[in-house]
């Protein structure tokens, strides 16, 4: 151990930095992947309870008692990895196999700028908000390419639906973030969190319409129910991933979709609900234990929003496609524009906690 430490300090500073960041990145990615695994379990369990069923309860976690069903994600992973990958005869082989990987990269890379706690963020860059907007807009490629490369009517229809939907809701999301930017005066996510400190500081209090629009657009962006027309099984079989099986199905469909869900929940908490700030910050004394900022608060907020994702899926019937488009273009975008204008007036007349 001692010699290892000595070897580390003898390295070039740039290499030391790269090594340290590499370990951090692997740690964050592992956390995301494990969260995704248990998210699939939580989804089936929670929806099961809401519908008066039990949900998965067969596989225990390494035989530990009272963990009925907890091992289900691992059983699923093993099953998916050992399944045969079927290549359709008329598919474009290269793009067919490339699409899942293209879908995976932005879902993971966006985590680089997320501030997890006051002291931990992988890359504390100044243009963090722009980086998030840029990378989340890349997620659509995996779906479009999967739909096209499969060379099947249903897959292409699913891809087109999904692409049009994502492009539409991205604009509303971007405008909602413009509102956040106007309040915080910075594109750096840590500074956005810090600007929300103090009593009544959370952005959601002053930007409630934007917060709601951001979260709902986030649900549409991730193709989740009630906006999951891209895979509407009653109309187009399963949409863009009809022909995917085994490991390609897992990496194209399950991993990016759930990672993006967790990401949207995280970003909603960071942008509008104070991120790692405590909900008691500014109400209790500054030295109170409950008022300390920490990862625990962020985690609690993320869990709440993820629960909302599942709750919506169990509650709402699927939207009709033209209604989705109407909601995105004719309701959300004008609403965000109006609220940005209102916010401008609030800043101008010094209403609210903003000093600039």
């Amino acid at each position, binding site marked *: 151990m001692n010699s290892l430490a000595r070897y580390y300090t003898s390295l070039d500073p*740039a290499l030391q930095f790269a090594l340290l960041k590499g370990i951090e990145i692997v740690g964050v990615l592992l956390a995301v992947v494990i969260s995704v695994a248990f998210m699939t379990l939580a989804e089936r369990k929670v929806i099961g309870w809401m519908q008066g069923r039990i949900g998965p309860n067969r596989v225990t976690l390494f035989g530990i008692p009272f963990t009925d069903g907890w091992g289900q994600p691992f059983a699923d992973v093993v099953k998916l990895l050992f399944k045969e990958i079927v290549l359709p005869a008329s598919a*474009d082989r*290269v*793009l067919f196999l490339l699409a899942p990987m293209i879908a995976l990269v932005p879902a993971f890379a966006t985590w680089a700028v997320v501030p997890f706690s006051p002291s931990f963020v992988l890359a504390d*860059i*100044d*243009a963090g908000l*722009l*980086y998030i*907007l*840029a*990378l989340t*807009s*890349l997620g*659509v*490629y995996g779906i*479009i*390419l999967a739909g*096209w490369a499969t060379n099947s009517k249903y897959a*292409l229809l699913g891809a*087109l639906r999904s*692409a049009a939907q994502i*492009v539409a809701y*991205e604009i509303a999301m971007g405008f909602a973030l413009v509102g956040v930017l106007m309040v915080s005066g910075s*594109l750096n996510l840590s500074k956005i969190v810090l600007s929300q400190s103090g009593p009544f500081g959370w952005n959601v209090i002053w930007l409630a319409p934007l917060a709601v629009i951001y979260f709902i657009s986030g649900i549409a962006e991730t193709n989740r129910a009630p906006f999951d027309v891209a895979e509407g099984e009653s109309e187009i079989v399963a949409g863009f991933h009809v022909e995917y099986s085994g490991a390609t199905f897992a990496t194209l469909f399950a991993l990016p979709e759930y990672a993006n869900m967790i990401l949207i929940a995280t970003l909603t908490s960071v942008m509008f609900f104070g991120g790692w700030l405590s909900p008691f910050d500014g109400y209790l004394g500054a030295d109170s234990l409950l008022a300390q900022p920490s990862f625990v608060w962020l985690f609690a907020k993320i869990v709440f929003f993820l629960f909302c994702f599942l709750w919506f899926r169990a509650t709402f019937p699927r939207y009709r496609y*033209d*209604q989705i488009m*109407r909601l995105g273009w004719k309701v959300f975008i004008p609403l965000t524009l109006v609220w940005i204008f209102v916010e401008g007036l609030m800043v101008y007349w010094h209403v609210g906690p903003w000093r600039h």
Partner: protein
Amino acid sequence: MLINILFYVYAATLVGAALGVVLARNSVHSAMFLVLAFFTSSGLWLLLGAEFLAIVLVLVYVGAVMVLFLFVVMMLDINIAQMKEGFTRYAPLGALIALVVIAEIAYAVWYRPVDLNLLGAARVVEDPSNTHSLGTVLYTVYVYPFQLAAVLLLLAIVAAITLTMRQRPNLKKQDISAQVAVRKADRLQIVQVASEKRP
């Protein structure tokens, strides 16, 4: 050292991707090569410290323009053999254009007026936040040209939408706002029917 390695990796990828755009037989593959080219050039801009431009390149070109482009290209039904019919006829013209472009690039590289250090050219900004300094300039010195460009873009959007607004008369279609705004009283009439007397 590390930056030099990254520069050459990005540059080589960029050139390879650009060749791929031209040489790929499948137009969707070409479009994807173009995406790769945009991505690597954004990486090059990042190396120069132009973080705002780099991210905006990805956001606008890769995230929006190329998605729509890919949309169109995916729908095309191209017959490669038919496309290649006029090759010999247009080859001299193509070669001429290529020569002119190469000559221009060569001129710019060998006879550049100031001695540019290509690796560290633009990394002399005092303000570390690229976005902030760009915004300051755009909204003070260049505010009128900037607003004018925005209005032009808005005009283009309105024009494009107007072109697609043609509608057949007497077309039966749903009015969703009317559907959503409908109330129970509009559709449902509750009638009190007197029950018949028992015989």
